[in-house]
């Protein structure tokens, strides 16, 4: 099979993995990789923030060459295009082909680096070793200093994961489904415990290296850009509360940098799977809620609880929270602190920082506020400025109708999911 055809097949196979958007790394260029680099003068360097080299038709950033080493797979996960029982055309790269593609695309500024995953074409260690070999050739033989993101194959040995971390900027192992029951139904050959174990190992390795270097011990960095994972949304009846709760634990206890939420895309007719694709709006709301956890100081339990286990499709999660907590408002703009400002609908991180700066520089006027970045259409009901209300209708109470066009709801939103799997508490035991 010629290279172009292989490229098309193995790119299509990789496109459902969203766990790769960024390409930022703090790895110092020219730092000594494992066992000393004797390759040619280094090509490329890590940049602190990712670079988007192009954008796909749905607005996703193209930053890395995202490929499968091979789409031959022994597993039969119900939701996956490449599952063993599917009749797609199978192909595999050689390590040399991947090295050549990465280097030539990098020099032409098409990519920041390589994102490499694979189907299970052999036992897990054999597959993982192939991925590590590609990374090793790039770093040690070619002196490549650009970005490398390697997938961690489930059940791969810790020794191989360790080697992977020496060459890669980021590692990821996809959880895909948030409970052992849904994983057991849709991907019985995978084990949630195993994946979490790998994540914990990666987290600990990274922490150990950073600790060593703080004490002055020379140790090559281990996956300096950390780890990420992906959750498939809507392939199982698991609600947003489960997904967000799991994400919060992954950020807190495992130190993950990013959790990606991928709306289930109905590619396979399988009785275990929903007939329809999950709504993209649900994915969007989850990302908004994820941002609230990471940058706005919210906890998952503030956004969702047993009575309302799903995010509201009609309102962004911060507005929904603000409506449910009128006791917190109105906030006085001239005295509120950063954390309080972040709770106001229509007031983001950038606006909050600008307000703090502008406050020190002089007296704020109501007409300045939109120019500081506030979305007054939402924010005005929740703020006062030097005691004066900002909403044009004096004393108007914020309501769903004012914050968003949409019919009022009486029952809790549910994304149209009817069935619930038994035992909906999180069933993974987090050691």
């Amino acid at each position, binding site marked *: 099979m010629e290279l172009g055809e292989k490229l*098309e097949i193995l*790119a299509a196979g990789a496109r459902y993995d969203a766990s790769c958007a960024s390409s930022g790394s703090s790895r110092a260029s020219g730092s000594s990789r494992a066992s000393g680099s004797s390759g040619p003068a280094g090509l490329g360097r890590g940049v602190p923030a990712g670079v988007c080299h192009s954008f796909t*038709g*749905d607005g996703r950033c193209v930053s890395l060459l995202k490929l499968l080493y091979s789409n031959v797979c022994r597993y039969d996960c119900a939701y996956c295009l490449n599952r063993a029982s599917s009749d797609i055309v199978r192909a595999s790269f050689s390590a040399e082909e991947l090295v050549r593609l990465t280097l030539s*695309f990098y020099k032409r500024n098409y990519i920041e680096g390589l994102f490499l995953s694979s189907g299970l074409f052999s036992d897990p260690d054999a597959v993982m070793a192939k991925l590590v070999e590609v990374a090793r050739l790039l770093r040690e033989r070619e002196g490549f200093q650009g970005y490398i993101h390697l997938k961690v194959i489930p059940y791969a040995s810790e020794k191989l994961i360790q080697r992977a971390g020496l060459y890669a900027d980021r590692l990821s192992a996809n959880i895909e489904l948030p409970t052992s029951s849904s994983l057991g139904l849709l991907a019985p050959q995978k084990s949630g415990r195993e994946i979490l174990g790998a994540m914990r190992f990666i987290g600990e390795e990274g922490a150990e290296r950073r600790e060593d270097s703080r004490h002055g011990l020379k140790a090559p960095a281990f996956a300096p850009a950390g780890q990420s994972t992906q959750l498939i949304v809507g392939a199982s009846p698991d609600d947003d509360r489960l997904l967000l709760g799991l994400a919060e634990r992954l950020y807190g206890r495992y130190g993950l940098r990013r959790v990606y939420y991928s709306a289930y895309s109905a590619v396979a007719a399988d009785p275990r799977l929903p007939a329809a694709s999950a709504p993209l709006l649900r994915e969007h709301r989850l990302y908004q809620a994820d941002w609230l956890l990471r940058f706005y100081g919210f906890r998952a339990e503030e956004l969702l609880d047993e009575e309302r286990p799903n995010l509201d499709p009609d309102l962004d999660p911060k507005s929904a929270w603000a409506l449910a907590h009128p006791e917190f408002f109105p906030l006085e703009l001239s005295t509120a602190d950063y954390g309080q400002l972040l709770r106001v609908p229509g007031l983001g991180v950038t606006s909050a920082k600008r307000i703090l700066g502008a406050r020190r520089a002089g007296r704020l006027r109501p007409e300045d506020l939109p120019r500081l970045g506030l979305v007054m259409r939402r924010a005005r009901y929740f703020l006062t400025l030097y005691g004066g209300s900002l909403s044009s209708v004096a004393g108007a109470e914020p309501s769903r109708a004012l914050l968003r066009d949409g019919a009022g709801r009486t029952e809790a939103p549910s994304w149209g999911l009817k069935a619930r799997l038994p035992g909906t508490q999180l069933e993974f035991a987090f050691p």
Partner: protein
Amino acid sequence: MSAGTWAYDGSLPGLAALVLRSLESGEAPEAVLDAALKRPSAEEGWLWPEAAARVPLGEGALSGREGEAALDALLGASRRLYAATLRAWMSEESVETELLGLAADFRARGELAFADYGRPSLRRLAEALRRVNWEVHKLEGFARFSPRPDPASGGERYVALLEPDHDVLPCLGPYFLRRFGRSPFALVDLRRAYALASVGEELELREGKDLEALMRPETEGEEAELWRRYFRATENPARAHPRLQRALMPRRYWAQMVEMAEKA
């Protein structure tokens, strides 16, 4: 032209000298004239009459050592002000007046001057500089290089053709210098008819015949076609959102991008 007009020769050190003047005196003019755009005349009451006499169009009143000294002095006084000056100079919009207003304010209030979004002149400046930054950031991603024969070095040089909205090559040059290591490359600004080419670890200006020499036909290879095939294979038609795609990657860049050129 009123006495409240200052002039400079259009060069970066010239603008830096004006900024330093504002910084030291705490004064800012009502208007700033970029002499490279207009030939100065004796009747027009320049603040620096000696500068007007010395500046033929296109040449710097501050050059060589003097120019470097002005830039170093500005960098030493305030990194943020230096960065703002560089971007104001690169910008096609005329924001020198606002920049000097910021410099005068900086003398009075230090870093607070950058935070006072209540002042319309600061907002205008910040927005204009943000557009320059955006252009730099976008072109770091969208610049597409192709290998061409380079007779001077006897090998290949990776060349990118660009049509930037602002004069951003001075910022892009160092970025790609770090990226390419020792591989020779060049950035060509098609709109302003000049290029920056790497020679070892330095960047050189190329114009006229030297510029044409950089734009020889590409070396044959399948990499561009492979990239196009890869890009098409990552499409997910179920999630098509062309408006978002154009917002993040405006159409004006497409002509110089391998994977978008056919749709430009």
